[in-house]
């Protein structure tokens, strides 16, 4: 089994992230909250004045950046997986029904999606956070509430395309019920698309979480998240740029990896694309 570079990169980063998230307590060299006021703004180890005690340096309170990044991955991974899954399920189910059954089901779902998308997403999530109170569950709910429409629209359009294909007619002529055609014939043809959407959504979820925690609306303030690290680092960007750059690199890397993972998986499992590379 050869693994394409894209798939390797995506899988590698995500497996690494999951590992870090679960093993944060054992892997992180320091307690992410432990302050060391004698060593504030310590530069990364490879710069002048850096020490190997703090690989990526310390922040304004002398907390270890690397440990904070590792602990921050817990929030990122949780949000990416749970929020993307929930948004995916909700959006896909509605999209499948709307696309396949058409008629009033489609009208109702499509109008809801239209109205939904008219709300500015950031505003919506801030309102939600204000109503529900800050916390991890709020972030997940906010992402699901905002992003199910993305799945719904794309899946609906794809199902409508698939529905008009001859193989669906063939399935009808062997007497399969609409439900069996939808689940047994149409859904497998939508799966490659779902994989791509899901991984894209993981990337988006990580960004949204970062935005919310940057605005202080995510998990409690003393927990490390990549977004809140950027927010804290922003104030000291002239003295210690690495405070801000380190979490940014993490976010960019995980979003890139999400996209690569999606592409790689689709190429691997879509029989139609597999034909291109014998």
């Amino acid at each position, binding site marked *: 089994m050869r693994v394409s570079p894209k798939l390797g990169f995506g899988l590698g980063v995500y497996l690494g992230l999951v590992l870090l998230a679960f093993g944060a307590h054992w892997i992180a060299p320091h307690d992410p909250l432990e302050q060391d006021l004698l060593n504030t703004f310590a530069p990364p180890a490879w710069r002048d004045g850096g020490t190997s005690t703090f690989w990526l340096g310390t922040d304004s309170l002398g907390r270890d950046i690397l440990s904070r990044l590792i602990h921050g991955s817990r929030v990122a991974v949780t949000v990416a997986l749970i929020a993307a899954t929930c948004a995916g399920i909700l959006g896909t189910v509605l999209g499948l029904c709307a696309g396949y059954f058409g008629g009033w089901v489609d009208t109702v779902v499509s109008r809801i999606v239209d109205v939904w998308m008219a709300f500015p997403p950031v505003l919506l999530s801030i309102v939600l956070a204000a109503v529900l109170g800050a916390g991890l569950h709020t972030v997940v709910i906010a992402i699901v509430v905002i992003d199910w429409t993305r799945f719904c629209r794309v899946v609906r359009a794809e199902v409508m395309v698939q529905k008009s294909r001859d*193989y669906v007619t063939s399935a009808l002529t062997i007497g*399969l019920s609409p439900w069996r055609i939808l689940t047994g*014939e149409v859904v497998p043809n939508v799966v490659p698309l779902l994989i791509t959407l899901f991984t894209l959504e993981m990337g988006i979820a990580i960004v949204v979480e970062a935005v919310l925690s940057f605005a202080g609306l995510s998990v409690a303030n003393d927990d490390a998240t990549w977004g809140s690290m950027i927010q804290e680092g922003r104030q000291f960007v002239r003295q210690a740029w690495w405070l801000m750059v380190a979490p940014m690199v993490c976010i960019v890397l995980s979003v890139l990896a999400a996209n690569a993972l999606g592409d790689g998986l689709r190429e691997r499992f879509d029989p139609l694309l597999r034909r291109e590379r014998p």
Partner: protein
Amino acid sequence: MTPPVLLDIDGLRVSVGGRPVLRDVSLQVRSGEIAGLVGESGAGKTMAGRAVLGLLPDAARVLSGEIRFDGTDLLSLKARAREALLGRDIALIPQNPMTALNPVARIGTQIVDGLRMHLGLDRNGARARAVELLQAVHLPDPESLLRRFPHELSGGMRQRVLIASAFSCRPRLVIADEPTTALDVTVQKQCLRLIRELQRQHATAVLFVTHDLGVVAKLCDSVAVMHGGRILEFRSGDDIFRAPRHPYTRALLAATPRFDRPGDTLVPVSAEVLARLQEEVDVYDAAH
């Protein structure tokens, strides 16, 4: 002795979005016989076939008429009852083998699904039967074929798979909707022979929709010539080719190359004939 009528389309009128597409279509298919339905593109032949299968487009309305299959009126059938009938008693050989198979499902699954549902076979039984079916359509190495995806097969192979799957539950009626149009000539011939062979073997009735008069001449017991949504002539195959009555049928025959008379000049269907047809359609529409 003539066999009993199995499929009886009687005075079927269908319109799509207010425009009539079938005008009083009546034709019968007798048990174990092949009935040809010929006509040019847009004549309504595919629409007639789809009406039998209950697969008319959403915008289509049946204005009047009946489709009786062995006594049951197909048009008034409930969805459940139709699902039970389709695939088991009535099957379709589709037009385009390249798109009629689900691209992400293995060949085996696609044949086995219908078998398990209609014949109540278990997984192994259905698989064994699928292998037999693929052997019956002369496909090599059926075991490994079951595990392949449609894109790994050529057009001719896919059409054989579809033919096998159409005959899989020993239906009493097969609707062949231009089954050879999308294939090249040599493969066409093999597929026709195959349909003929299976049809004889199972004594299946076939409604053969095509625009190829040559195919009809060889294959069909009776022939209906269609134009503008109307059946112009419906008679036994021999009669229609020996003594065509309708001027359009005569014109069509004159426009078709024949192996037994290679020297003949082909005459396109004349404007006169077409004008007369249009006139007839106008008169008909005015009356309805």
